[in-house]
């Protein structure tokens, strides 16, 4: 299980070149690393109702994110053979009750599991998903660029959705995600250090883009409670 510490922000397109220029000089990277991927969101085929306060043995169901690298000429989902599979847990409590003091976390902290699927010739993504008990729900493209600042990855991206035979922007905004992945969730020293690093970056970018901890309910990909269909 990997723990991801992150902060999110949003900016407008008019701020894009300014932000890129500032980030380039901040991190000392003359050009950003461009990336583009397709994300497929999959949900379980059978949804079991989650009952809070029930004494019966229950388990939580999560949505799965599958990501694959694509390029400009992407057209067919069947042509993608390599997929990264991620399951995100609901973000950790932002208010921690440690002994007597209540401590508010300054960054978003979320655990996730990651694996890879390589499709052989003739395999179909839908079939693999079916074997896992999942089905495709929706998919979107992410176009973005990355900067690296110390241990932090800074991602600027836009989301494109497929509407009426055309990829269009979900929104005119540009999302900013800054994060550090920590391999072990028990590595407290690293977690504290990384938290501080992210907070420092937030201070550094004050006035340019406002980085903050998002409402954790929006990062919750659990099925049971939220989606009863």
């Amino acid at each position, binding site marked *: 299980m990997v723990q991801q510490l992150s902060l999110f922000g*949003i900016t407008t397109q008019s701020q894009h070149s300014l932000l890129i220029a500032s980030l380039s000089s901040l991190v000392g990277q003359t050009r950003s690393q461009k990336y583009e991927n397709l994300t497929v969101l999959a949900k379980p085929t059978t949804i079991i109702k989650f009952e809070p306060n029930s004494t019966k043995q229950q388990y939580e169901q999560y949505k799965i994110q599958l990501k694959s690298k694509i390029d400009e000429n992407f057209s067919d989902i069947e042509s993608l053979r390599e997929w990264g599979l991620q399951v995100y847990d609901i973000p950790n409590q932002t208010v921690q009750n440690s002994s007597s003091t209540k401590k508010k976390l300054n960054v978003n902290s979320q655990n996730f599991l990651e694996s890879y699927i390589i499709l052989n010739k003739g395999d179909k993504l839908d079939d693999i998903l079916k074997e896992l008990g999942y089905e495709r729900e929706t998919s979107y493209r992410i176009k973005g660029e990355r900067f690296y600042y110390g241990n932090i990855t800074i991602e600027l991206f836009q989301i494109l959705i497929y509407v009426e035979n055309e990829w269009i922007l979900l929104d005119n905004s540009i999302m900013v995600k800054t994060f550090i992945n920590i391999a072990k969730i028990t590595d407290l020293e690293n977690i504290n250090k990384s938290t501080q690093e992210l907070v420092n970056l937030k201070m550094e970018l004050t006035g340019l883009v406002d980085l903050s901890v998002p409402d954790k309910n929006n990062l919750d990909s659990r099925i049971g409670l939220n989606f009863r269909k």
Partner: protein
Amino acid sequence: MQASQDNKNNAIDFSSIPVEALESLRLRLTQLASLSSTLTSYSEILDQTVTYPLPQFPTTEQEGLLTTLLRKKALPEVIDWIKESKENSTDILLKDDEDSTRWAAELVLNKRNEYNFNDESDGDMMVTDLKPEPKLNVDQVLKYMYQGVLPEKK
């Protein structure tokens, strides 16, 4: 200068012209011009040279001369001359200045258009030809990314 002198010569009685004094002034001016050009050509060396009095120099008796010789700043009256000539030269060129500013601004714009400051693939990667105002906030976008749920208003 020569012309005005000639005019004077024609208008006024010739005999009263102090020819010798004028000749000597002309000579001094030539010498000054020569000195000035020599100083200019050696200015680089002179700038780097450090001057100091030799032990034989009568420091106590000639203190005034010494300070004058070693003086690096321009004399107060010289500073006044420089200031005065600067003031005189500003008001004349105001209009020209505006023209040259406009010319410079245009030149910069034209020159800037001739170069490509961005990565060639910039335009391809980010979609920029759209309305500037975003409609969604961070939370709404994240909700879509993690849950596939679009905001209701669409």
